[in-house]
């Protein structure tokens, strides 16, 4: 099978001669036993499988954790979008023409309870995905600290919170609307 190279060229002859010479001078070592090859082969196979599993895990685990965390993340962490009543529900029936009234006071929107509409003065909308969920913030001009009523129309929940109890997002919304966190009825946002 092996066809010797024709070495008429000095360079080619030198390559052949020196390769032969090197083969003679190189320390020869006996091949490892076939059992050694088989053991090493099995170890390599195990290492290769392990590397693939680790690589797969390195990709899949962060993706799974990220997806799970996104699924678990509370929906009210979405940024608030501040709009006026008219922008939110321009066709909503108004109970009164008073500038402080105009929000639909439907029991289904307030967790089955009616809110004192006379004190409603502005609405904050919370953007949740594709659905707009309005958050009504009621400023109650009472004696003592200022209170807010936050109503989530879509989920029908209403709660009352003092200034200190507002979440950072709600706090920022109040600041955006009033320019400060000490709102009074004499300075309505709309």
């Amino acid at each position, binding site marked *: *099978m*092996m*066809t*010797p*190279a024709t070495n008429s*060229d*000095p*360079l*080619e002859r*030198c*390559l*052949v*001669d*020196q*390769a032969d*010479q*090197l*083969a*003679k*001078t*190189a*320390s*020869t*070592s006996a*091949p*490892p036993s*076939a*059992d050694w*090859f*088989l053991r*090493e*082969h099995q170890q*390599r*196979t195990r290492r290769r499988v392990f590397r693939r599993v680790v690589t797969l895990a390195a990709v899949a685990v962060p993706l799974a954790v990220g997806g799970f965390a996104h699924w678990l993340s509370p929906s009210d962490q979405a940024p608030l979008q501040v709009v006026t009543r008219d922008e939110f529900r321009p066709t909503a029936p108004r109970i009164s023409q008073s500038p402080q009234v105009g929000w639909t006071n439907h029991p289904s929107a307030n967790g089955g309870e009616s809110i004192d509409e006379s004190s409603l003065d502005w609405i904050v909308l919370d953007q949740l995905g594709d659905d707009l969920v309005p958050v009504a913030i009621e400023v109650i001009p009472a004696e003592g600290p200022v209170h807010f009523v936050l109503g989530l129309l879509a989920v029908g929940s209403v709660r009352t919170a003092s200034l200190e109890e507002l979440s950072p997002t709600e706090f920022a919304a109040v600041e955006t609307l009033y320019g400060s966190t000490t709102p009074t009825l004499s300075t309505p946002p709309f």
Partner: protein
Amino acid sequence: MDPSRENSPPEWFEQWVHAHYERIRRAAFVLCGNSADADDLAQDTFLRLLSTRSRFSGKSSPETWLYAILLNAHRQRCRSNQRLWRRWCEWWNGDGSKAVSIAPDAEIHSREWTESIWGAVAQLPVAQRQAIVLRYAEQLSYEEIAEVLECPVGTVRSRLHAATAALRERLPPDAVLRPVEKETIPCLVR
């Protein structure tokens, strides 16, 4: 299947090791230039054979198949070394601008190999270097080299021509015909 044969090497493998290991190891030595790397490369070749034997159709000779595995292993090793070496140079120099362009394992080659024309062959591009080894160290025909390298015979001729031309340019005239003088076991020059 006989359970006692499950953890023992197949018969054909022992025959292949017995018949071809010495020749493959010799080619590995000419490629690498030192005994330790030659041993690693030859062993790696036969380990890969265990994984790829099922793809051997018998159209080519076992030697051709083994040479192809050997050269693939060598190519991968060169790439891996170059990457590590480049990173090391970048780290050492602070940036990559002064990266040294010598072979990564130049310092551990045997003296005889470095002083021979094969040391100069090592400076050639990998494709030319492999063609030269197969032609002049292993004495394969052009057709056999083409089969091993999986390229047309014309490409083999072209690579060999380019390689010998490059060698003639790089070597001083007296170096071409100088024989290897020492017939000792190669020592490691660190």
